[in-house]
């Protein structure tokens, strides 16, 4: 970046906005503005993407227009001139499109997406600023820094579209990434072939795509039609010999609306016709029927599915609730349950029939309330999946591969916290699938696969868990390559016999990438291990299966909620700990002979022939207890990140579902404790993190 550019960027940095209100005094207004803008941007983005897909109608454009208009209004009120400026230009553009003065084009879609990206950056900058002013960032070093945003190139692009509409065919459409690059780097424009390609691929998602899916027309027919979309549709059809010039003329006669547009605009340009046709998808259908390429029935079913797709975009009625309030309610209900249990215990001993009947009723109601409150924390995966479709669009543009993302099960509900943490791992996996999995177009064709890659993202329930699957139809993982790389790096020895599954799962090890070249999307060998770590943090698992040449499937399994776990309550001295049931393999009381020491320090316990190191919890955490001999207490065999080992505890007290409570920042560095929970007697129990316990144990020796 040259020096002058740097200055340029600095001049337009968010700090230069003079706010009309004081952040500290009117923090609520700012916070509300931030969340409002966030919502508007998300809505707009998904609406723009839906236009790109198939649903280019007045309502959708109007919805985007309204969102951007609201942002502009609020931004102006707060004195955020940059945000106001950009949204104003975008609004003007959308208004013209809305009034059909300009026809919707790929270029407009691209510039809208880039503008939304920039607005989001401006919003994020404001958020950082608000956080800083309100003193939420205690740690100034690690807090995110504001990123300079230069909106001028975007505004220029929009203005050029507005001024130059009739000539806009000459302007080279840009991919959002390129525009974003330009915003940051202010580099000179360069010609882009990719974007033109993208223009075509996205078109095929329209009616043609639906017809194709249903087998009503062939890919060839569609491709040809799309390739020559610039010509009048009648000409194409005549050239292809599907129809005669006469028939086309007849069709054109019926096509009154196109005729009207033509008259209104006088001389038409190619792009105007393309735009007009896009607005008139129904008419395209009729022409196809006339030309004999398809039947009315097919068109009707296709239109029906198009309608259905639009319908699902209706939003559900919701009330926004601060999560803190929800958490409070959750705590209170938890207390209610505990108190309820205690009273029940006392009443049972009192042996009063009437009371116990009423109490059991109360118990039932309390339980219902708890379930209800629990369900309030659940949100659908819709937003996350929508973000992914944007990502796939961008990555496929960058890598020059045509990729289609098929989403299912986006209505599956998950705990809000889980969903927030899920986005990053999904991004990683999807990027990998497109970058490494899906082959280049010519390779695919030569292998007899469809030119367009397919990535399926689906979510569903299975056995009390949520499963998210990412499936691509690409090249699959090459076992031999992975194994060789792992052997090279000394992760496994060449003698060790691994199952296919074990080999595939090696890709989650740090530093292992099989991509021949490192691209700016992926291939550096970081990422998959982070994916695994993040998923494990959510107490989930991630697994991969693959078939060479046919594709890979990543399966993420997550608990329904982060808030509740199944645990075994144990005690050491008079302290109670909870060990998550998922990490426990077994528990047993060893005999004296099973225990042996190494160098009189490290202890191992022999469990049916396998030697496991023994961690004495009372020693590790300095707890007074009388049971110091393993053969008088219990060894719980757990599986942590570093493998299996035994934990010595005094007693097992029972199994319990507990609601996890964070211990807060104050204790975040305590090794081996991942949180706390309130036990049946109202006391606090600490939840053990078995990987952390092992770390602490190694550290203490």
């Amino acid at each position, binding site marked *: 970046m040259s020096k002058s550019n740097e200055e340029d960027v600095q001049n337009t940095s968010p700090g230069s906005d003079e706010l009309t209100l004081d952040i500290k005094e009117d923090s609520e207004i700012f916070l509300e503005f931030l969340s409002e803008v966030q919502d508007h941007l998300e809505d707009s983005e998904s609406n723009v993407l839906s236009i790109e897909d198939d649903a280019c109608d007045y309502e959708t454009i109007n919805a985007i227009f309204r969102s951007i208009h609201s942002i502009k209004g609020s931004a102006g009120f707060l004195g955020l001139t940059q945000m106001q400026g950009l949204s104003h230009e975008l609004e003007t553009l959308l208004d013209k499109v809305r009034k059909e003065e300009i026809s919707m084009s790929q270029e407009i879609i691209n510039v809208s997406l880039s503008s939304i990206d920039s607005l989001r950056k401006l919003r994020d900058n404001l958020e950082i600023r608000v956080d800083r002013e309100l003193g939420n960032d*205690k740690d100034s070093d690690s807090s995110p820094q504001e990123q300079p945003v230069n909106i001028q190139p975007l505004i220029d692009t929009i203005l050029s579209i507005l001024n130059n509409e009739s000539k806009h065919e000459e302007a080279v459409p840009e991919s959002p990434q390129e525009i974003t690059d330009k915003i940051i780097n202010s580099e000179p424009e360069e010609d882009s072939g990719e974007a033109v390609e993208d223009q075509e691929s996205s078109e095929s998602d329209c009616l043609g795509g639906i017809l194709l899916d249903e087998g009503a027309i062939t890919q060839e027919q569609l491709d040809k039609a799309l390739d020559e979309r610039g010509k009048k549709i009648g000409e194409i059809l005549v050239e292809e010999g599907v129809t005669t010039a006469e028939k086309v003329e007849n069709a054109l006669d019926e096509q009154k609306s196109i005729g009207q547009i033509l008259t209104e605009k006088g001389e038409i340009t190619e792009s105007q016709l393309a735009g007009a046709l896009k607005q008139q998808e129904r008419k395209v259908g009729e022409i196809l029927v006339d030309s004999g390429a398809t039947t009315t029935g097919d068109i009707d079913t296709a239109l029906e599915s198009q309608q259905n797709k639009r319908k699902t975009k209706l939003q559900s009625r919701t009330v926004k609730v601060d999560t803190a309030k929800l958490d409070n309610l*959750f*705590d*209170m209900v*938890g*207390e209610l349950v505990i108190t309820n249990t205690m009273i029940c215990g006392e009443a049972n001993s009192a042996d009063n029939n009437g009371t116990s009947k009423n109490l059991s009723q109360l118990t039932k109601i309390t339980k219902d309330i708890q379930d209800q409150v629990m369900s309030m924390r659940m949100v659908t995966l819709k937003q996350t999946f929508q973000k992914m479709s944007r990502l796939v669009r961008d990555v496929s543009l960058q890598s020059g591969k045509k990729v289609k993302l098929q989403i299912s099960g986006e209505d599956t509900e998950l705990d809000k916290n889980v969903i927030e943490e899920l986005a990053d791992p999904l991004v990683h996996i999807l990027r990998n699938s497109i970058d490494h999995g899906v082959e280049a177009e010519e390779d695919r064709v030569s292998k007899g696969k469809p030119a367009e890659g397919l990535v399926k993202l689906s979510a569903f329930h299975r056995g009390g868990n949520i499963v998210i699957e990412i499936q691509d139809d690409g090249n699959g993982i090459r076992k031999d390559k992975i194994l060789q790389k792992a052997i090279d790096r000394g992760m496994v020895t060449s003698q060790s016999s691994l199952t296919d599954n074990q080999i595939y799962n090696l890709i989650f090890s740090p530093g292992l990438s099989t991509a021949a070249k490192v691209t700016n999307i992926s291939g550096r060998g970081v990422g998959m291990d982070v994916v695994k770590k993040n998923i494990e943090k959510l107490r989930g698992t991630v697994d991969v299966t693959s078939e060479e040449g046919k594709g890979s499937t990543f399966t993420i399994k997550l608990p329904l909620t982060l808030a509740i776990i199944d645990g075994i309550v144990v005690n050491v001295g008079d*302290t*109670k700990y909870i060990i998550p049931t998922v990490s426990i393999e077994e528990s047993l009381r060893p005999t004296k002979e099973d225990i042996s020491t190494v160098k009189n320090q490290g202890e191992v316990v022999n469990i049916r022939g396998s030697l496991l190191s023994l961690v004495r919890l009372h020693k*590790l*955490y*300095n*707890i007074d207890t009388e049971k110091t001999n393993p053969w008088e207490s219990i060894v719980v065999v757990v599986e942590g990140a570093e493998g299996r080992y035994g934990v010595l505890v005094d007693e097992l007290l029972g199994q319990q579902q507990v609601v996890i*409570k*964070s*211990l*807060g*920042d*104050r*204790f975040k*560095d*305590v*090794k*081996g*404790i991942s949180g*706390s929970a*309130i036990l049946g007697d*109202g*006391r*606090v*129990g*600490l939840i053990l993190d078995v990987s952390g316990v092992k770390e*602490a144990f190694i*550290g*203490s020796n």
Partner: protein
Amino acid sequence: MEAVLEEKRTKSHEGKYLTFVLGTEEYGIEILKVREIIGMMDITTVPQTPDYMKGVINLRGKVIPVIDLRLKFAMDELKHTQETCTIVVEVNSSLIGIIVDTVSEVVDIGSEAVEDTPAFGQGIDTDFIIGLGKVQEKIIILLDIEKVMSTEELEIAEKMAEN
């Protein structure tokens, strides 16, 4: 600029304070920082933390840490009595319990009754003392509870580093 700051500091000294006793000394905390006063509850010890960090308690469904102010101020630990209390204060928007010998009263202290903390020489940290308040011949040590807690966080971090 400095004068303004100075004025602000003196100004913040006056107000209502909740006073409590540790041994023979009487301390005060700004009443606005105090959330509630509760009796002693069952405390769950958290390993690998300093002595004065007694552990965590269940405050109506919230898990909050409690510290023993005696130990924090390097006094001898006292067996808990009927009068021993936990004062729940809000520090940096999180709750924390403070164990004290006994809670006395709420007093109004005017700015003229607050004296700056005299220097006690090296080794005695007076950073977390706002000043000394004089109420009816009694001296009340006015604590800046946020500062008390922030040094505690550092110490925990150090303790972790040792492990």
